């Protein structure tokens, strides 16, 4: 179980995160949603062990996180800067497995190919990232994260820079990954619809100083669909509720 306890983070005089306490239950898809500039990425980097908090702590299975834990993978927003342009798609996905002594080479290449097939890149394995569209590049970094076999998958606004249709495809890909792999997913986004559509739970952040405004359970069924789910009364209720929270309006529901 991943927990943050009274986490704060300042960069010099600038306070990025005021005080955050939250839990990310095992096997659940938790979305963190908040206005832009509220410190979502900073929070995620603290969760990943890439940034040291100024106060409070991040706990993974009751152990304090001080460096990136082996059980975690992270998908960055900026796929074009997170993939290695001198490696093929296959090599990019296989790269984190190179140092894994417990795995045989055959098992490694099987894992890599399975991950690439499950994100729909079976035909692009031997191409270079820059030969692919933005959506396919982000699929590559998702495949890299899956092949790493983490218990916890962190995602930092992963679909913020792809077009709307690709975004819908990738959202459905995430639902399939959650179903097939059953890992804990922490998904940061500024898109309210996306957070309701994907999440089992939503952590709503407020800005300056950043705190948790509310934690919502999403009462939608496991199987979701871009058209019918997004027209479901529960979806619309949650969407409106989160919207009002973030826009500082009095919640109507």
């Amino acid at each position: 179980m991943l927990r943050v306890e009274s986490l704060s983070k300042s960069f010099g005089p600038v306070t990025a995160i005021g005080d955050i306490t939250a839990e990310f239950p095992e096997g659940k898809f938790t979305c963190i949603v908040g206005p832009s500039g509220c410190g979502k990425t900073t929070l995620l980097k603290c969760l990943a062990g890439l940034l040291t908090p100024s106060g409070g702590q991040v706990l993974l299975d009751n152990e304090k996180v001080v460096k990136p834990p082996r059980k975690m993978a992270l998908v960055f927003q900026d796929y074009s800067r997170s993939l290695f342009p001198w490696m093929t798609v296959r090599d990019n996905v296989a790269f984190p497995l190179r140092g894994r002594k417990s795995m045989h080479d055959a098992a490694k290449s099987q894992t890599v190919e399975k991950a690439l097939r499950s994100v729909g890149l079976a035909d692009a394995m031997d191409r270079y990232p820059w030969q692919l569209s933005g959506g396919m590049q982000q699929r590559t970094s998702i495949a890299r994260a899956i092949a790493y076999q983490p218990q916890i998958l962190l995602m930092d606004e992963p679909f913020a820079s792809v077009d709307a249709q690709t975004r819908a495809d990738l959202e459905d890909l995430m639902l399939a990954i959650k179903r097939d792999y059953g890992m804990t997913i922490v998904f940061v986004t500024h898109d309210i619809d996306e957070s309701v559509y994907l999440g089992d739970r939503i952590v709503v952040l407020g800005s300056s100083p950043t705190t948790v405004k509310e934690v919502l359970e999403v009462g939608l069924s496991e199987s979701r669909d871009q058209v019918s789910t997004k027209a479901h009364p529960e979806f619309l209720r949650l969407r409106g509720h989160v919207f009002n929270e973030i826009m500082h309006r009095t919640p109507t529901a």
Partner: protein
Amino acid sequence: MKSSRIILITLEIVTPLLLILAYALWAGPRGDFFFPSLDKILSTFWHDWLGGLVATDIVPSLYRTLAGFALAAVLAIALGIVLGLSRRARIATAPLVEFFRALPPPALLPLTILVLGVGDTAKIMLIALVCVFPILLNTIAGVAGLDPTLRDTARVYHISRADVLFRIIIPAALPAIFAGLRTSLSLAVIMMVISEFVAATNGIGFSIWQAKRLFDIPSMWAGIILLGIVGYTLNMILVGIESIVLRWHRGARAAAR
């Protein structure tokens, strides 16, 4: 696309040919001692440089140039990676590096003649000394400029130190390193010629100087033309290697446009 490529290649070939033709038409009827006719220069070039002088003068010059350049490349890339990785080492050595970089390279020639003598070793050392700085500075910039997202990616996925160095940092710095290598290669040719002007018993630079002293003007021109061809060829070879090694970089840049 294809026809425009043919036009570009044609332009590249035709322009120098036109200039050569212009020289031939201009110099031929003049009979000027310092600007001999084209056929005189070319026949000297043909007999001297493509005959006996290949072994006695071209080979020694190429050896000095390439040995100095290679020595500089190895030292500068190794040192550049160390300095690029450590901000403190970079700050500590910055004044020294900037000083030597600002020094006009031939200024070091009297020193190397006094300390190292006039043999091949001295010439190679001088060429290496001058070639080190462009490669060093570019390597430092390339290594220090590694994208922080790539660094974070390596940390998240627990990439080993050796893999970070050889499979992330060095490939990422290669475009900058090659820019340094190209600058240094032309410096290597310049320093080869200068060092052979001042103190040498063979080499292309020596031959040009010798021809000047004997007022053998066509031979002097032939040597100058040879130097141009040598410099051009060396650069073409380096650019060829670069385009193979950095195929991904060209592709990535073209895709970003």
